[in-house]
């Protein structure tokens, strides 16, 4: 049986003029690589090209990925228990 997990992603700064919170559903377990592919599938045409890597994932040199506590996330492990995953391109205000 495939178990689906519902969670939120925040995309802040990847789409330059829109900061959004979206609810996604994916079969668990899933890792960051799987999630980024899903994000690019859904929003890739609006995400600025600088933020997409040559491998078709998000460019982690510029895009920071974290859990709600701010802990950085990376590829290669199950992240399906995290309720909200943040993708941000930092802006340092004024």
């Amino acid at each position: 049986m495939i178990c689906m997990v519902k969670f939120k992603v925040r995309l802040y700064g990847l789409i330059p003029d829109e900061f959004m919170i979206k609810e996604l559903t994916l079969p668990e377990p899933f890792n960051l690589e799987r999630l980024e592919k899903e994000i690019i599938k859904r929003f890739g045409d609006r995400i600025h090209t600088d933020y997409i890597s040559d491998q078709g994932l998000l460019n982690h040199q510029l895009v920071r990925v974290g859990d709600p506590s701010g802990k950085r996330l990376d590829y290669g492990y199950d992240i399906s228990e995290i309720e909200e995953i943040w993708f941000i391109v930092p802006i340092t205000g004024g």
Partner: protein
Amino acid sequence: MKGYAGRLLRVDLSSGTITKEKIPDEYLRDYIGGTGLAARYLYDEIPVNGDVFDENNKLFFSVGPLNGKQFPTSGRCNVSCRSPLTGIWLDSSWSGRFGYNLKRAGYDAIIIEGKSPRPVYLYINNEQVELKDASAVWGKMTSESLKGIYEECGISRASCCTIGPAGEKMVKTGCIIGDTTKAAGRGGSGALMGSKKLKAIYVYGSQNPEVPDEDVWRKVVKEINTKIKENKTSQGLKAYGTGVAMAMADQTGDAPIKNWTLGKWDGFAKVNGIAMAKTILKKHKPQCFACPIRCARYVEIDEGEYQMKGEGPEYEAMAALGSMCLNDNLESVAYANFLCNEYGIDVISTGSAISFAMEAYEKGILAKKDTDGIELTWGNVEAILAMIRKIANREGIGDLLGQGVREAADVLGQGTEDFAIHVKGLELPMHDPRAFFAFGPTYATSPRGGCHLRGYVGGFDGVGVMPEAGLNEPQDPHASEGKGFLAKIVQDYCAVFQSSVICFFTLYAVTPTDLAKALTAATGISYDAQKVLKAGERIFNLQRAFNNRLGLTSADDVLPERLLTSTIGGPNEGILPNFEEQMKEYYELRKWEDDGRPSKEKLRELGLDFVISDLYG
């Protein structure tokens, strides 16, 4: 010389005399304008001894070659002096359209000297320049002062900058408010205006500054304007204002919390640019001349205890009056920001001073008897608002806090210096060097004290490149290596921005090559990227020399110990820069001596030979 008016106004408030002087061409060529021109003049004209409120301290208002026409964000004006708050170099600028009008009136700068025996304002309408009686607006809030002077003078499209009651009372964090609510916030230039009894400057200009070739100029302006508009960060700032950075603070750890101690705060969800857009933001009203970014927010609160209309809080205000004080009530943050603008006090220094006082209260160093009965507890909105009023009016403990946290800690003692967060007397802006390591050497060496704009590394650390200066890849924000380098190149570049008197937010899109092209089109002087960066280095080092002459040494190039200690929780917990390594790298690249003076070799290389005898005897 094309691109410049080529002259300045010298206003002696003691005698009431006003003269128009030619500016030497070499000053314009070597120091560009704005803060660079100010440094060249004030280095010669402000004595190294004496109190900051002595009549021989001067105010220098200035623009650059890009002002006065349609260059993006060129409505700005720079103001420089010896800072009442820090005692060292100060420059600050505000947006709106004052700089546009000043240039079109036919002046690159105004030097204000002496002290007036009575409240006056300076009236400039092209060639007509006079001091007028300001008694009708003396004592008024900034909005009333501006309104009164606009009505009295009556020219549509004119500009005015003013001080509020705080500046008049010489509160050392008193600022200048221009056009509507645009602040030259930092360092107390408003207090110096107050000490000179200069309430305001009103300016209207109708001349079109000459450039070598109008067609070339227009083409360059159009190209750069498009580049700024299309830049991805510009679009984010346009959509949600600078406050959008507060929405990311849980992830970046950039915004300080509870006087720079915590790393995590639930209030970021309520106090940020996105939340503001959904609640109190009413219109997206363009407020700065020729700005394609339009980050300013216009807000209205129609009901309840925090009713106001006007400019909404920027990121710095949201952090200083929000997370620093654990205040998660957005409407109250907007109102507190409004009060600061009305009284004419710097929001960063004011929020920092209140946060400092709250910590002193928590530790039992301050008690109710010291605060006129105010419970100065974290997150107490009424206490924050009451303290703003006390600071602005120099009442009770507010009199001390308005002198800045360094002076407050000197008076209070009892270990308060450990949590008085400043560099060289200037309260730090709302960016944490534990989140973006490049802020460390930037704060430690900025010529006006702890400042993020005299080296806007936030636009580069982890996000940007500057190939013209050798920065080809974005750096890891948590790497110490390379941050002395980053601080140096961005400081040099920002010195040119502040001398061209344009907004730092264009720096996300405008490269040194672009800026060289614009300066060439404006002046006819042949600039390239290297020449631009060299001019920035010259200006930065002259300001450094200004401070060295006042006694500043490498011992002053430090960060508060608290910022070299881990936050409690948050994304940067346990992550700290190697500040010593950063500074070593920085000093080597700057070619500064161990005692903090620019080396003779560097001064000669930059054409600053005239400084050598002052620094080395």
